[in-house]
């Protein structure tokens, strides 16, 4: 089975500065893939470069066997790639219902939007209760759910999430993760960038670890952090330092 | 590459004028006599200046048809003073230094007269203004080279004050342009009334901005003040708006006084303005041309040539151009001092009445016409003379 979305040998960054080098990843359907790594390791840059928000210097992006390198973000959504940014991820002056409506922007059929809306409210009942509330008045957790719900309205094949747990307290965080799990089960592949390694690995199938713009580890979620050494490497500790211990 | 082409284009754009200067115009067989015309063709008073320019053009056509001056044809060098005295001065300098004119018809506004008058005298250039009415000009030290065809505010307001007194109005409101023309007339009218022992009250004085062009609340103020007479000092284009909005607001049941600025067919372009003027204006003043053949000829020729009736100051600019031509002819040479001396002696019957100048260069005497607006059987509006006043 060929992967639904893959990035091959990507170099990307902003303006004239390259942040990540030679990174290759792939995602299959019915899979949650985690991109892990410390601050400034280039995780967000990676997904931004897939969507055209960051500058792609080299490499290829393949979606469904088609080369979509250098696509603009609005086109990407139409093709089935959803994206939830880390910050500013809702339209704060629109209500919840309007946010979801905007999520379904690529869809022209009113009936289908309605049915998607009901579906989404089924997954996120806490949003259904406050349809008319301004998104700007929501709490961190609700906002994050709305952001994911909005992206799901376009019924993407692949969903890219940038640190969904960053500003969310633990309880809603777990709720969000379980929702992601059910989204995956419905057939959407999820690529998730996160710092909270334990939590995200609990629902992921595979993971990649980025340090300083390069991919240092990859593998299945269960085995990725088995060894003490890989834990240390994640934190930038080199073996010899540990030896001194 | 594209950038280079662009730089070249820009350089050409900038240098074209310089090149133009160096290339001498083709030698005409007889070099024409140049008369400068400095009117405001753009800016707030641009529309009025454009009309006035036609008066000057008409005069030149007639002068040339009559054989020109000094045996040579007359050519107008037109410049735009842009309703900005600084720009006006610049254009006057250009007329004098570059074109070498010795007599300028203009400037149109008092501001430019004050900024350019001194420069004209320094260069022995005569200015004949058709419309700069400010009293301050007479106090300057360069008036020996400055002549005015238009009549001063003080004279006109004396006529107006007589109308107020005769009709026994006691509550007067004023609605004037906030410029030298409007405020000048307002001030001198109030002064003249006081001097004549008027017992009434100046209940409200509105000084409005030309550019605002929306005077509903201003007019409402006048309405609420329960005035029995309103003196409106406007030009044609703002006058239309004042009058039509006055009709809208229902101010046609009290008496209005007009002035030379709102005399003429230009005010009838808007049907409502015309309707209002016919209903409300009891009397307006203007320098009386109209007495005699000169004015009839002017009105006929102007209407024939431009397809519209002359408006305010079209007659004075026409007279100013004629005065310039006559003075050059009388001087016998195209030379500033001689033209000035000839101008001082000048006396002729112009479209705006008899023209001669006093020692200040102001018009020596004036006859004012009192006018009204009437609608004829065909529904056409026109100004009608209701009296003549000699001051």
């Amino acid at each position, binding site marked *: 089975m060929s992967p639904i979305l893959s990035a091959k040998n990507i170099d990307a960054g902003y303006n004239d500065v390259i942040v990540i080098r030679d990174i290759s990843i792939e995602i299959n359907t019915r899979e949650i893939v985690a991109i892990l790594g410390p*601050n400034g390791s280039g995780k967000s840059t990676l997904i931004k470069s897939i969507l055209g928000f960051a500058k792609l210097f080299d490499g290829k992006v393949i979606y469904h066997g088609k080369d979509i390198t250098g696509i603009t973000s609005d086109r990407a959504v139409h093709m089935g790639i959803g994206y939830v940014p880390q910050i500013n991820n809702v339209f704060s002056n629109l209500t919840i219902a309007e946010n979801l409506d905007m999520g379904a922007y690529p869809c022209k059929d009113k009936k289908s939007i309605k049915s998607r809306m009901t579906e989404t409210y089924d997954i996120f009942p806490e949003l259904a209760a406050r349809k008319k509330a301004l998104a700007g008045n929501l709490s961190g957790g609700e906002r994050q759910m709305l952001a994911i719900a909005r992206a799901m309205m376009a019924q993407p094949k692949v969903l890219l999430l940038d*640190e969904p*747990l960053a500003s969310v307290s633990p309880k809603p965080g777990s709720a969000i993760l379980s929702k992601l799990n059910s989204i995956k089960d419905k057939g959407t592949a999820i690529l998730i960038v996160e710092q*909270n390694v334990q*939590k995200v690995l609990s629902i992921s199938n595979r993971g990649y670890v980025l340090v*300083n713009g390069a991919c240092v580890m990859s593998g299945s979620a269960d085995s990725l952090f088995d060894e003490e050494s890989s834990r240390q490497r994640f934190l930038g*500790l080199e073996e010899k*330092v540990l030896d001194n211990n | 590459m594209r950038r280079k082409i662009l730089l070249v284009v820009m350089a050409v754009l900038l240098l074209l004028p310089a090149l133009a200067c160096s290339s001498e115009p083709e030698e005409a067989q007889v070099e024409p006599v140049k008369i400068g015309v400095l009117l405001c063709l753009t800016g707030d008073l641009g529309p009025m200046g454009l009309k006035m320019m036609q008066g000057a053009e008409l005069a030149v056509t007639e002068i040339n048809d009559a054989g020109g001056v000094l045996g040579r044809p007359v050519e107008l060098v037109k410049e735009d003073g842009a309703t900005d005295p600084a720009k006006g001065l610049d254009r006057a300098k250009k007329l004098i230094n570059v074109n070498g004119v010795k007599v300028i018809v203009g400037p149109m506004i008092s501001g430019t007269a004050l900024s350019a008058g001194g420069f004209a005298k320094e260069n022995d250039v005569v200015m004949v203004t058709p419309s700069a009415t400010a009293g301050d000009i007479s106090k300057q030290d360069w008036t020996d080279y400055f002549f005015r065809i238009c009549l001063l505010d003080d004279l006109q307001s004396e006529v107006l004050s007589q109308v107020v007194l005769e009709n026994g109005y006691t509550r007067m409101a004023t609605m004037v342009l906030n410029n030298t023309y409007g405020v000048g007339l307002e001030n001198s009218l109030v002064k003249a009334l006081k001097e004549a022992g008027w017992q009434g009250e100046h209940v409200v004085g509105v000084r409005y901005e030309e550019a605002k062009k929306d005077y509903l609340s201003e007019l409402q103020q006048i309405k609420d003040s329960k005035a029995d007479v309103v003196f409106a000092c406007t030009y044609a284009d703002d006058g239309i708006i004042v009058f039509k909005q006055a009709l809208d607001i229902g101010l046609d049941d009290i008496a209005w006084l007009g002035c030379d600025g709102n005399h003429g067919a230009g005010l009838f372009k808007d049907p409502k303005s015309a309707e209002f003027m016919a209903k409300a204006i009891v009397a307006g003043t203007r320098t009386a041309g109209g007495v005699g053949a000169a004015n009839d000829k002017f009105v006929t020729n102007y209407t024939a040539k431009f397809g519209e009736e002359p408006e305010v100051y079209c007659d004075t600019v026409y007279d100013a151009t004629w005065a310039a031509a006559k003075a050059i002819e009388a001087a016998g040479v195209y030379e500033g001092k001689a033209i000035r001396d000839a101008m001082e002696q000048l006396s002729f019957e112009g479209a705006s009445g008899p023209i001669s100048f006093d020692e200040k260069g102001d018009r020596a005497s004036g006859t004012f016409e009192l006018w009204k607006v009437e609608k004829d059987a065909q529904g056409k509006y026109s100004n009608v003379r209701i009296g003549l006043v000699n001051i």
Partner: protein
Amino acid sequence: MPEEALLKIEKVSKHFGGIYAVNNVSLDIHEGGIWSMVGPNGSGKSTLFNTILGLYKPDEGTISFKGERINNMYPYQIYARGLVNSFQTPRIFHSMTILDNMLVAARGHQGDSMWNSLFMRKKWQKQEEKLIDEALNLLEFVELNRMAFSPAAELSGGQRKLLELAKVLMAKPTLLLLDEPAAGINPVLAKKIFRKLNEISRNGTTFLIIEHRLDLLFEFASWTYVLNKGSIIATGKPKDIVNNPVFYQAYLGEE
């Protein structure tokens, strides 16, 4: 007699629209050595830094530097007292030369005042010569001296980071706050930088550094504060901290 802290933070809180970015934090930095602060993304480190520097006003608590309350001062006043920071993403002045970038940062340049610039040119020319020498030395250390007269816009990302560091060293600060000085530059140079910082710290400058590379902290830092969710959850020597389960939890998330 207890030594007075160089920087004393007492019960400082800062929230943005109901979310506490910094929650009741107290800590002391004493003179000398390299102090460090670690914590995952969004733990409030940068907010705390900005609050110390006067870019944010704390909602509660006091901050004092050398015994003087500084939490109502403007950034430039704090800077003038010797408390200096470097930004995580370099904020350099693009159209100016690299050397000019350095000279802007100099503390107490006589020519910074309008009067002196116009009428006392002699007064600061000498000083400027000295400053240029210092700047070139610092640039040599970060290997940018050959580009000293080129516009800063020509620098690459890593070089910008180095310039940002060199710039703040120009101020000869008493306490220098560094936000991830090693992020985005190659490991060898990162180590070299920390060695240099160590050297400088022996001459009287104290450092407070946010850093993720624990190897560097093990080698150079004398004390570490661990921040998570706006609060300090552990303190101690780096090597002790690393064995604290709280630390791992903060980094890898709760189980």
